[in-house]
């Protein structure tokens, strides 16, 4: 039996709305393997972000079990979880979430600050290569405000990839992009998955991309099922 990279079993998530406990995720079970490209679709407010926040170890408060690479991290310390995020998860957000007082290079280097790769000689070369492959090498010393939306999202992608994570988690990565840039970013994801064998979980509400990955999930009012 092969190990799943991600294995959710009967996960439920509640939020308190005033005094009332509202169930946002309802008994979600999910298995994702290495090199999968999973697309998660659903209406706004259906619980997609809530789900991938749990998958990306941003949220530790839920019921049920979550195994990552065969291990549970539900009772681990903040240090362990932070390290796990640093090494294994590359986040990409809808609104890029770049730091505006940092250059492109400095933004991309953020995950490096928190990993112990001080002695790694090839960091600079790695970084240049990555920026080059994303077509933003010439923007290395620019600030995000000097870039187009598409370019900013490429910076965010570079930041997600710099530590060679096991999985990329993207929450509506094209939501703030025009159609031209959307197309380009999606093709980039496809290349990353097919050529570079990067595992990807992507949330989108754009039907056009339903068949982009090899797995398609739908979330409906907190209930997940594979299409």
């Amino acid at each position: 039996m092969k190990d799943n990279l991600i294995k959710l079993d009967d996960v439920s998530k509640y939020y308190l709305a005033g005094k009332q406990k509202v169930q946002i995720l309802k008994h979600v079970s999910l298995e994702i393997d290495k090199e999968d490209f999973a697309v998660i679709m659903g209406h706004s407010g259906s619980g997609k972000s809530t789900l991938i926040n749990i998958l990306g170890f941003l949220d530790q408060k839920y019921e049920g079990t979550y195994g990552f690479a065969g291990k549970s991290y539900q009772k681990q310390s903040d240090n362990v979880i932070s390290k796990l995020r640093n090494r294994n998860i590359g986040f990409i957000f809808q609104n890029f979430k770049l730091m505006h007082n940092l250059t492109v290079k400095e933004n991309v280097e953020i995950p490096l600050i928190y990993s112990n790769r001080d002695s790694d000689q090839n960091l600079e070369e790695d970084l240049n290569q990555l920026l080059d492959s994303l077509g933003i090498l010439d923007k290395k010393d620019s600030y995000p405000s000097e870039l187009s939306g598409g370019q900013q999202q490429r910076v965010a992608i570079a930041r997600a990839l710099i530590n060679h994570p096991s999985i990329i988690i993207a929450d509506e990565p094209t939501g703030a992009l025009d159609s031209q840039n959307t197309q380009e970013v999606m093709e980039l994801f496809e290349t990353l998955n097919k050529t570079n064998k990067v595992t990807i979980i992507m949330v989108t509400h754009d039907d056009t991309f339903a068949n982009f990955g090899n797995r398609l999930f739908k979330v409906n009012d907190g209930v997940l099922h594979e299409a």
Partner: protein
Amino acid sequence: MKLKKLKAILLTALKSILSNKARNFLTMFGIIIGIAAVITIMSVGNGLKQKANSFSSLGNADGQISIQSKDLNSDQQPSFSKADIQLVETVPGIKRVKMLNKAFPTPVKVQVGDKSSEQNAIIQNSNHKFTVVSGHSISSDAFELGLNQVLISEQLNQKLKKYNHGRKLVFINQKGFEVDGIFEDGQDSEVLIPQRAYVRDFGSNPNQDLINLYVDKGFNKKATLKAAAKTLQTKSDSKSQVKFAVVDNKASMKFMNKIIDYIAYFIIFVASISLLIAGIGVMNTMYMTISERTQEIGIRRAFGATKNDIRLQFLFESAMLTLLGGFGGILLGEGICYVIGAFAPFKPVTSLQAIGVSVGVSVSIGIVFGIIPANQAARKNLIEIL
């Protein structure tokens, strides 16, 4: 901690401080004032002490022993021999013995007209070492008879010119002296007084020979000094003609030093209150900074920063802010000391200790008042801030 992380933390802190210059300057203002007060008072106290010590030949020694002729009418001023010094060095607890320059400058009050000032005088029996540039030197008869004649320096002459209306009379400790001549500047004194005249007018000989003694740590100073004097009195070659005695000069100095210390403590207490208020300002600024940067905290946490990393980030920033304020305070304090030194009859002296205290205090304020906001930043809920 990894170098890369440390560098990133420092750079981020610096950037953040620089990007909010106006607000951060206001925050630092209290620290600057408080630290400037600390530096000023410590330096002034230090300068006063040094000035007080410079009036006495004691300096920073633990005590002095004098040598005096048993025959009170003797003209001959006895002095310590090499053998005497070696003898004292053998006394247990004596660390070091220092021979003093016989003609040690003595402070006197010089008055012309209604202008008076404190000057150092050399009291000796000849013009030795003094070069007269105008007027004439003191005659050997005058030395012999102890006439009230003096030489003064060019510099002092310049000062007095305006007031003496061409007359050559000055009052020294309220006794009249005639100015015979002017000597070249560069002595460590402004007045030369014949010793006989000084002894007759003021009843004491300031030039009795002294040795300065330094006592080892762990030995009782008083007892050790007494033992040294006793050893001399019983074993010195000249024991039959002279009397050795421990000089009691520290009492008044000690009192003076204590008063200076108390004043310093009081001002430092007042400065502490201003620093406390400044600390609260720092806390407030850190809360503002953190709330403006919740997004940044979220991003850093998502990409691997631990709670500790975030806490450290803001602690460093807060400490750096107050340290910069501390540096500003040190500079301002030095400026104030410079101005005081230009007008007061002594120079404030900033010790390394004062700098150390300032740096320590300012960093501590940053840490103490930064810890609560930094903790709050570290504990922020990730989902809510992303």
